[in-house]
């Protein structure tokens, strides 16, 4: 299944041209569909009018404008595009800068990879927006970015314009590097305990506070017209932390255990910032009231646990219990494959915890939108919001549901029928290129052989016929070339 979809997708750069197209695109009208608006109830046999990439009208009694492109929704279900609050797709290179304990200088936005096939895979699962996070190797990790899955666009066109940037924090076993053994001669990285994780975070914010003060002093003096002062040195590691303290950057904290979640709340309070989301937060049900009181959101798995010691005390009721106590809860994937069935992951809370269908849907739409501060733009089907929509063939909370079309900004980025129809042509092209390479390789072999024979035939230049005249070539040259050259 996945393989087939992969074959059907081809990344072709054409960003600017498509962007221009979206501005003058004809109106789209989705008609006669069951619409789950998430915030404004469900509509049977309703219509959605899309204009300039936005939702222009939603309702049961809408008529299609004469020149609109029609998407027939008969028997189909439309929901807002799914928002994945924890994703690592579309990243060029490692998602972890694991060298320093505080890797806040690293920025996912620098290394977005629009050609990552996972973007298309996840589109095919109805995901339209994803929070692309740095990994969890450090107490304070790298800077993060929210993207829309605009497959085929340039890296610069992926970020969700207007969304606040974030930063990844991580608590527990990963940042303290449980289970890692450094090779001889290389000291273990500090910290190695949960206590140390706390200390590293506190120390970083103490330094960031001092750094902020340096700049504030400088700016004050400069504003007062004092001459001869040299600006402080910019610090790429501390600047994002200053932004956190100034409320300009969200903290998304990877965590499992209740005790360390409470710890981070205390540290955040000390330095005057708020944790925007606790990620994974498998023991959140134990401290749901405290999380709710702190104003943080929780972004968790439905039923994924037991993969390490700190992930054992988990229950499938976590999401429902936290929601019941007033925590804003989302269900995330943390995985390119799982992201393709977030609708089913959300539905599990209907079984475990008795959530309503609409509350379950909220956990993959409007709730993560609020957590990422983008709920004025996406997360529900309302007039004026971005036309990020998924059309399913069944109720999306059913295991039979398969996404048929995924739209972002009113543009169809995934169309299951077109995908299936296009596979043969792509297969053919691929086979053609493989055959061409094979033929070229054989010709080269013949040529080399001829050259060998010629050399061997020359007097005084005796060589074994099988001796190659070409110098040996190094291993995977193409990989090196793709990686940016060997200079």
């Amino acid at each position: 299944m996945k393989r087939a979809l992969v074959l059907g997708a081809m990344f072709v750069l054409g960003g600017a041209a498509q962007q221009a197209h979206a501005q003058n695109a004809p109106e789209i009208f989705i008609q006669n569909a069951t619409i789950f608006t998430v915030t404004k109830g469900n509509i049977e046999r309703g219509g959605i009018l899309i204009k300039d990439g936005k939702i222009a009208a939603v309702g049961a009694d809408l008529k299609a404008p004469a020149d609109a492109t029609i998407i027939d929704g008969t028997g189909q279900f439309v929901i807002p595009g799914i928002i994945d609050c924890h994703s690592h797709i579309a990243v060029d290179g490692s998602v972890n800068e694991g060298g320093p304990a505080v890797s806040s200088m690293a920025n996912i936005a620098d290394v977005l990879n629009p050609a990552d096939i996972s973007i298309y895979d996840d589109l095919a699962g109805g995901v339209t927006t994803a929070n692309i996070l740095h990994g969890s190797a450090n107490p304070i990790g790298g800077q993060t970015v929210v993207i829309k899955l605009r497959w085929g666009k340039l890296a610069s066109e992926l970020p969700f314009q207007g969304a606040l940037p974030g930063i990844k924090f991580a608590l527990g076993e990963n940042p303290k590097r449980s289970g890692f053994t450094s090779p001889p001669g290389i000291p273990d990285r500090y910290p190695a305990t949960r206590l140390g994780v706390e200390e590293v975070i506190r120390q970083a914010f103490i330094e960031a506070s001092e750094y902020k003060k340096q700049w504030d002093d400088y700016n004050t003096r400069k504003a007062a017209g004092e001459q001869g002062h040299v600006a402080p040195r910019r610090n790429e590691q501390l600047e994002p932390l200053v932004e956190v303290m100034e409320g300009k950057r969200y903290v998304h904290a990877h965590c499992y255990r209740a005790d360390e979640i409470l710890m981070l709340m205390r540290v955040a309070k000390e330095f005057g910032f708020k944790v925007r989301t606790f990620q994974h937060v498998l023991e959140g049900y134990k401290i749901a009231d405290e999380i709710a009181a702190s104003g943080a959101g929780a972004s968790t798995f439905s039923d994924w646990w037991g993969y390490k010691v700190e992930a054992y005390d988990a229950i499938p009721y976590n999401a429902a219990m936290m929601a019941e106590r007033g925590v804003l809860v989302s269900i995330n994937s943390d995985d390119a494959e799982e992201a393709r069935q977030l609708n089913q992951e959300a539905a599990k809370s209907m079984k475990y915890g008795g959530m309503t269908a609409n509350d379950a849907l909220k956990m993959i739409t409007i709730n993560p939108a609020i957590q990422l501060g983008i709920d004025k733009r996406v997360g529900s089907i309302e007039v004026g919001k971005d036309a990020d929509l998924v059309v399913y063939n069944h109720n999306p909370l059913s295991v039979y549901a398969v996404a048929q079309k995924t739209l972002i900004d009113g543009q169809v980025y995934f169309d299951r029928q077109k995908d299936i129809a296009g596979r043969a042509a792509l297969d053919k092209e691929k086979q053609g290129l493989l055959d061409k390479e094979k033929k070229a390789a054989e010709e080269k072999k013949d040529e080399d052989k001829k050259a060998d024979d010629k050399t061997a035939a020359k007097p005084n230049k005796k060589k074994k016929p099988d001796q190659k005249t070409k110098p040996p070539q190094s291993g995977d040259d193409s990989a090196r070339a793709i990686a940016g050259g060997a200079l």
Partner: protein
Amino acid sequence: MNRSLAARLAAGLTRGKFWLAVIASSLALLAAGVMFTARGEGGEPRYFAITHARIVPVSGPVIENGTVIVAKGLIQSVGTSVTIPPEAWAIEGKGLTVYPGLIDAGTSVGLGEDSGGDSGRGKGGASAGPPVLGPEGRPGTSPWRVVADEIKTDDKRIETWRNAGFTTTLTVPDGGIFPGQAAVLDLAGNRAGDYVVRVNATVPISFKPVGGFFGFPDSLMGTIAYVRQVHDDTAWYLQAEPAYEANPAKIERPSYDRTEVVLSEAAKRHEIVMLPANNSIQILRALRLADEWKIPAVLYGGQQGYEVADALAAKKMPVLVNLKWPERGKDADPDAEQTLRELRFRDRAPGTPAAFAKAGVKFGFYSDGLPAPKDILKNAKKAIDAGLSPEAALRAFTLDSADILGLSDRMGSIAPGKIANLVVTDGDIFNEKTKVKHVFVDGRWFEIHEDATPPEKPGDKKPSDDSAATAKRYAGAEGAGR
């Protein structure tokens, strides 16, 4: 002893005593390891006239039946009616074509054939002692390493490159994120210093992580963040240092950091910064970073440029195109899944230069790790087969490369006043059957013998050449003495 002998032999040459030349060249062959130090004593012939040749100046239209005068390392004149100085050696160019010397704008030639090693590299993170844990540890950073000071004149590739018509290289250091400063070299000279055309030619940057698993940076984004911090630091030092010097009584002394000092000097002379960018995503990223950092950038790699040629043209960003076209690794798993994107890339990469020419992107060529210079021209031919005009290909190897490196006032074309870097062939330079007959590097003449046929020259009674594919120089040849 060698010294005086050389001086006497050389002196004989300028007086046109050809028998001395005969002895000189025989001696050069016989006495392996003879190193002449007679430079500057008037030892070598300094005046040449290539007559009746087809001349491709690159900077102007082709001249049929023309003459090029080389005088003291420079091109003195070129045309159909030029006066041949009496002291000039005449080289009959009938049936031959004269091109400007080719430039390989990215290679390790001149650094020794094992230059891939770690000589002089900066702290490579995990490999050298305790890992570097942040930007302040300056991982993989040694911008003070200057290629011009590390030339290995016994690098055999100097001769093979030169014999193939490459007179000039941008020789780039390897190892680390800031491996050092590349130099422009002319591939001949008596001493290493003779090779150097420009000492501080470029500051190459690599985005390859150097930290291993335990050091910083161990990711692409960490590496970019590190380069960004170094950029900040350099910008800061450019402010802080003069501010302190102007007011030492009021301002705290900036601490000494070799990286900041060296890179701020490079910034002051607007030294070119080479950013790695091979696929289209890397290219667009590099364009953004060059904008952000406001550096005089040149991209290297460029092989997927066919996807983003317009974006490069819009930014007027020059590109050094790697002629080592991507191919499936020889040892690649035959069953490994290959994406259509990879296959298309391998198929279309040679079309990049044509796309650049069409879009108006200025580009040069470089060999990267190609093992033999004939492969460089062969791979350039692939670009021509994919739609690049031979004229544009020649420009990329000559004037455009020189222009990108800021040296078009002294090399890259056949015009009066330019360095006498010339390659003389018996046909079109991109034709595989074409043979290079003569090469001039800084006005030094090399006669190339690919077979035993001795060249026809008046009065030249050279002993028969018993070694195939050698280049011989008349007098004072450090290379020929091997």
